[in-house]
């Protein structure tokens, strides 16, 4: 029993140490590096917990893209002003409070019988209440049009959430665009330093990007029946685009180009038109006709993948000429 838990205990210890480092490392740069490492350990843990596609998405988004974002921002920022060396007395006393709270939570979790059996693959002792939502999903799977429950939840049962999430992405991009005039000059400076790229880096980017596109395509295609889907695929494609942009292999597009605007908006547009069509001609807002459900979901997913990939890569490495109108 304890031996089986060994990898989990090691991973948990690592994770807690990295979280501590990402918060209190002596320099900001160390903190960022540890945050990226933290993301990778999280990905490992999720793979262990039966979510390999989420692990991939976390590695690409949580560690990769967020890491690039943080490092880029750090180049534009002045050095950290306040030193973290001097810590008040209540720094430690609050840590004690934190420890006590965690211990209380732990005892609560450990004493809850309905949670004990998980991970062992036996669901016999799980109380009916804690499993009712997954059972509802399983019961409705036949009408969803896809074979993978996560995809069914995302694009059929809770399609509203996913539509709004695409709008959140658009909102974030709009917000970033509004802020551009203030950073124009410094962004230009960053862009200039990237110009001469080392040959090995170029070759490596040329090798990695197609692999990432392939993985993204596979995840999208696989999403209908297994682990995968639009968001994971979009994250992979965005990672490929970011690599190519950072090495200067992909030219920057202009925001005035219709193609770029279309790519950013098409996911939400297709989703909204499907919703409107089902409202007007079907049974209601986002209630797909059963025989069409599969095709509609695939169509939405393909366009959503494109929009997610383009929006994420613009959020991470967007240049002024791409973002300012």
């Amino acid at each position: 029993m304890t031996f089986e838990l060994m990898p989990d205990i090691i991973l948990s210890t690592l994770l807690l140490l990295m979280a501590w480092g990402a918060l209190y490392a002596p320099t900001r740069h160390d903190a960022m590096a540890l945050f990226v490492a933290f993301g990778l350990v999280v990905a490992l843990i999720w793979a262990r917990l039966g979510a390999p596609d989420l692990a991939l998405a976390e590695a690409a988004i949580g560690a990769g893209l967020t890491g690039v974002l943080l490092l880029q921002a750090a180049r534009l920022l002045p050095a950290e002003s306040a030193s973290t060396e001097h810590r008040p007395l209540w720094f430690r006393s609050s840590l004690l409070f934190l420890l006590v709270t965690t211990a209380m939570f732990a005892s609560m979790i450990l004493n809850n019988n309905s949670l004990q059996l998980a991970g062992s693959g036996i669901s016999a002792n799980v109380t009916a209440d804690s499993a009712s939502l997954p059972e509802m999903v399983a019961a409705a799977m036949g009408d969803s049009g896809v074979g993978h429950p996560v995809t069914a939840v995302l694009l059929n049962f809770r399609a509203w959430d996913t539509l709004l999430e695409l709008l959140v992405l658009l909102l974030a991009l709009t917000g970033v665009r509004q802020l551009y005039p203030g950073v124009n000059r410094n962004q230009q400076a960053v862009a200039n330093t990237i110009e001469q790229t080392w040959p090995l880096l170029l070759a490596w980017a040329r090798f990695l990007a197609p692999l990432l596109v392939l993985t993204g395509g596979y995840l999208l295609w696989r999403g209908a029946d297994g682990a995968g889907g639009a968001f994971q695929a979009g994250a992979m494609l965005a990672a490929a685009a970011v690599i190519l942009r950072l090495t200067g292999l992909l030219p920057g597009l202009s925001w005035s180009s219709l193609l770029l605007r279309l790519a950013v908006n098409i996911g939400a547009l297709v989703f909204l038109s499907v919703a409107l069509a089902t409202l007007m001609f079907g049974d209601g807002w986002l209630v797909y006709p059963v025989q069409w459900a599969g095709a509609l979901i695939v169509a939405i997913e393909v366009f959503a993948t494109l929009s997610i990939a383009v929006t994420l890569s613009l959020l991470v490495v967007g240049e002024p000429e791409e973002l300012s109108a």
Partner: protein
Amino acid sequence: MSAMQLYTIVGAAIFLLALHGLLMTTDSIRRLIAVNLMGAGTFLIMIALAARISPPDPVLHALVVTGLVVAISATALALRLITSAAIAQHSQDSENKGDGDLSEDVKP
């Protein structure tokens, strides 16, 4: 104790630790990292809870997928706000300094 219980507890610990960091640090980048860590702790709890049954609970997985993308959008926007504010501050400072420091600039 099962792996799932362990990770639920670790997720809660990371959430609390990150909250502690959010309150204790002053640097805006570190605070943003702290918020991201709080999110990661929450996601970890959700994925661990999803593993209470086999196959894992799809509803929680779907929520985490959504959450990941929302988290990075928020991070990107926050970083842009931080850099814009810092640059505005910097240019304001140099303008203010510019009047008094002219004599120093002339020196080699």
